[in-house]
Every structure is written in structure tokens, then in C-alpha cells.
């Protein structure tokens, strides 16, 4: 357990910077986490990815497959890696307020 301070707001996060309590997440929190990771100003493409990840988490309790993100946003794989330089897990899932996925990510 650690604390992450962004623009005066303090969040409880795990050692990797993922929110400890996914329920405190909202769009403003997403923007703050993105900013801490060097993404200044999320555009529509960023939001379309975040929304699918968040919806999947709320319905199924986990992160969606990258296939679902690509097919539902119409974005190419490489575009997603460019939008989120830390990748779909450490980048996008963290901004969407999910717990860190298991495995080599």
C-alpha cells in the first residue's frame, strides 16, 4: 500500500500505482492518473479505450481482451500502444481505475 499525490489530491494505491479502491474512480481521477503517467490531456481516442475497459470491469470484474478494445473502438493495435506508452495493462487499465492484472505485466 502506498500513497500517490497528484495535483494536491492523494490516492491509496498499490506498489505499482493502481488504485486500491476502484470505486473512488471517476473521469477526473482518470485524468489525474493519466497526467502522472505523462499523458497530458486525454483525447477522444484515449477515452474510448478507457470507457471499454471500465465497462468491462464493472460488468465482469476484469480487464477486457485487447481484441475487444480494438474491435469496439476501431483502433489499430499499434495506435493503442502509442496512446498508452505503458501498454494496455500498466497504462490504460491503471487510468481506468482497475486493480493490476496478474501475470507478466
Amino acid at each position, binding site marked *: 500500500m502506498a500513497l500517490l499525490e497528484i495535483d494536491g489530491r492523494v490516492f491509496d494505491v498499490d506498489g505499482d500505482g493502481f488504485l486500491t479502491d476502484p470505486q473512488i474512480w471517476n473521469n477526473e481521477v482518470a485524468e489525474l492518473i493519466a497526467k502522472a503517467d505523462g499523458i497530458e490531456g486525454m483525447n477522444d481516442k484515449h477515452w474510448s479505450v478507457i470507457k471499454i475497459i471500465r465497462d468491462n470491469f464493472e460488468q465482469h470484474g476484469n480487464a477486457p481482451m*485487447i481484441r475487444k478494445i480494438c474491435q469496439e473502438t476501431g483502433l489499430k493495435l499499434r495506435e493503442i500502444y502509442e496512446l498508452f506508452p505503458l501498454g494496455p495493462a500498466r497504462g490504460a487499465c491503471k487510468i481506468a481505475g482497475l486493480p493490476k492484472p*496478474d501475470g507478466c505485466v
Partner: protein
Amino acid sequence: MKSADNKKRREEALELLNQAENSKLLTNLNACVRCGLCAQSCMYYKALNEPRFIPSAKVDLVSSIYRRYYTVTGKVAPALFGAKSLDQDMEERMVDLLFGACTMCGRCVKHCSIGVDIPFVVRKGREMLAVMDMVPKSLQSTVDAALNTGNNMAIPQEEFVDTIKWMEEELVDEMGDPEARIPLDETDKELFYTLNPREPKFFPLSISAMAKIFYAAGESWTLSSKFYDVTNYGFFNANNGEAAQIAGYLYDEIHKLRGKRLILGECGHGSRAHKWEGPNYLKKGYDFDIITVVELIGEYIRTGKIVLDKTLNSVKHTIHDPCNLVRNGGLVNEIRFIVNRSVSDLIEMSPYGDDNFCCGGGGGSLAMSEYNDRRLKIGKIKADQIAATGAKVVITPCHNCVDQLLQINHTYKLGVTIKTIAEVVADALVIEKRIKD
């Protein structure tokens, strides 16, 4: 009641060191002469500069317990002979240093004046912690996912199948051949291929790359839709019963599908755990051939099954050597043979090959959020190595390394691209069109 449980678990942990006939264990517990040569070989000591991170100090945690309970001098005069009790303080230090400050990369072994197998002792300490239920939560959660679902990211079978079908459609488009395939659950194929679950879940470009290579080679191969996971985090949590169960999944599946050769996807620890440790976990030998995909691609190049044009990869590349494939797996030259055929501008890191530094994410540390801060600090050593090469692309045949490199690329603003070996080879492939008019 709880303290009775603790006492029993401690006794079980101590029993792991009570092996008078185990010469490998006794040699490694007794051989360190505290010369200190290992200190500068270790990323943790170099980056964090505290004596507790010196590899010999980690070995001493385990050997001091051995002396306390299993040597006459240690029992009679523990303080005089550096013998320590297994108590709560010791357990906490073991968790912190053996799980939280060792990637089991083995670089210290190469620098040890007498060749103590330090990661072997570290893993023995982890085994003791595992029987006491003291594996860090996030690491155990990755093992549990593999035990319960067959893959360490708990990907449901139907979602995996949908992803493979999607990759297959892309392959058909890219090859311009409606017969291009990514076969699932097919029997009697030459190769049974395996993946790191992070490929289907988040990073499938390496699946497309391998599918292209298999297509170009005209290979007879298949994936299983259920047991395709090449990882075995039981190697890291050091619960040998769990490691055996995970190893058994691939063993049983290749028999079920009657595959002839098990091909280990690009994963350092997975290759080591299945190829070298698997028969020990399972207590039986393999009756099928088992090789890494690196060796398979080398074979394709030598036999002319695939043709490469290295001018297709013309920017400056460098190689990050995964510890479990190179220092602990013998593939230093094979990786270079493939890369030299696939890229036209290669620069080595310093040091490279058997003496290269770990990415900093080995030993299960990438899964352990508890030690994220340390992992990024030691990753600075790798970041500096990469920056010094001036390369634009870092090639590494291990998905765990890829993820750590992605993170240090971001943290230290390196501005490089990280690729697996399959991706680099696929980009250099010269494929004859097989369209039938």
C-alpha cells in the same frame, strides 16, 4: 491455536534444510567464503548500495538457519558461529530479501570465486517461506490464476478462441491467402506451440509474427485453446507441488493432442521451468522433444525453411539477454545468429551475453507490486546500458523482459521500441505469395 500452527509450519520449513544426503544443498550452504566479489555483480547492491543486498548476505540468511539447527557448533554456540533462529524477524527479512530483492538472474554465480549457486539457495529460502504461507500476495495470485484456470491471467477459453480467430483473419488479410491458419486443438501435429498469456490478453503482435513465420516455413503446428501457457510461476513462488501441477498441464495437453515437439514461446523463466526443471517437478522424464522457439527459428534459417532479408530492419538494434535463456540457458550464440540474419545494424550492450544485466523484472518481481519501487530503481542500470548503445530497437526473446523494458523505457525516457525475436524475424521475412489464380 495460531501459534501452534506457526510452530508446525516452521518445523516443516526447517525440515527442508535437514537433508544430510543432499550434496548440492550442503555444498551451496557451506561454501561461501565471504570474499565479497559478488557484491558488485548484483543490481540491487549496485543501485541501492546497502550491505543487506549483497548476494552472499542473502545466502547467509538461509545458511545461518542451517547452522543453528543442523550443526553441532551452531547448536552449542550460535553467536560464535553466525547461527540464527528461524523467528519472526528472520522470516520478515527473508521475505524482503529473497522475494523482494533477488531476480534470481544468476549474474552473481558467474562472479563468485567458487561458483556458489546463489539463486538455488535463494529458491530454497523461498521454498521455506512457501510452506509457511509467506509468499507475497500478488505473486501467489498469479500462481493461483494459473492453477485454477490453466493460464496465469485467467483468460476464459472462449475469449482466447475469439482472439485467435481475430488474429487468423488478420493473417489471412496480410498474407493474401484464405488458407493461412492459426490452428487450434488440432491433433498429430509436428509442433505444439505455447504462449505467454500476456500475448492474447494485451500484446498479440508476437502471435501474428509467429503465425507468419510458421506460414512461411509451411509448418504443421497447433495451439491448445485451454493449456497454452508457457509460464510457470511455481518456479518463483517455490511451491513445488504447485509448480508440478502447472508443469503437468502442458505435459498432459501435448499428449492429448499427440504433438511431437513442445515449442516454448518467448519466455525466459517458462523455458527454464519447463525444459530444465519440469522433469524434476513431475518426477518423470519427457517422452517428447522440447525446445525454445529461439532454437526453432535458428533451425528454420539453417535449413532454408524461411528466407530473411535483413535490409528490411535497417535501424540500429541491440539485444537484451534474458537471464534464463542466456546465462542460465545457453542461447547466447543462437540469439545472435538469428538477429544477425534479421537486422543489418546491430550493436551490443556493455556488458552483453552471459554477463549482461537482468532487465530488473526477473524472479517474479514484475508480478510483485510490493517491490515496484526497487524494481524501477535497479532498472536504471538496464536503462543506462540501453541508452549507451544509441539503438532505436531493443530485441529480447522474453515477454517478462519486454514488460520491464517497456516500463523503464517510459520511466527513463529512452525513446526505444521493444520487440520480441519473432517480431524482428517476421519483419525480415521474404514470403512467396501462394495465391492460386
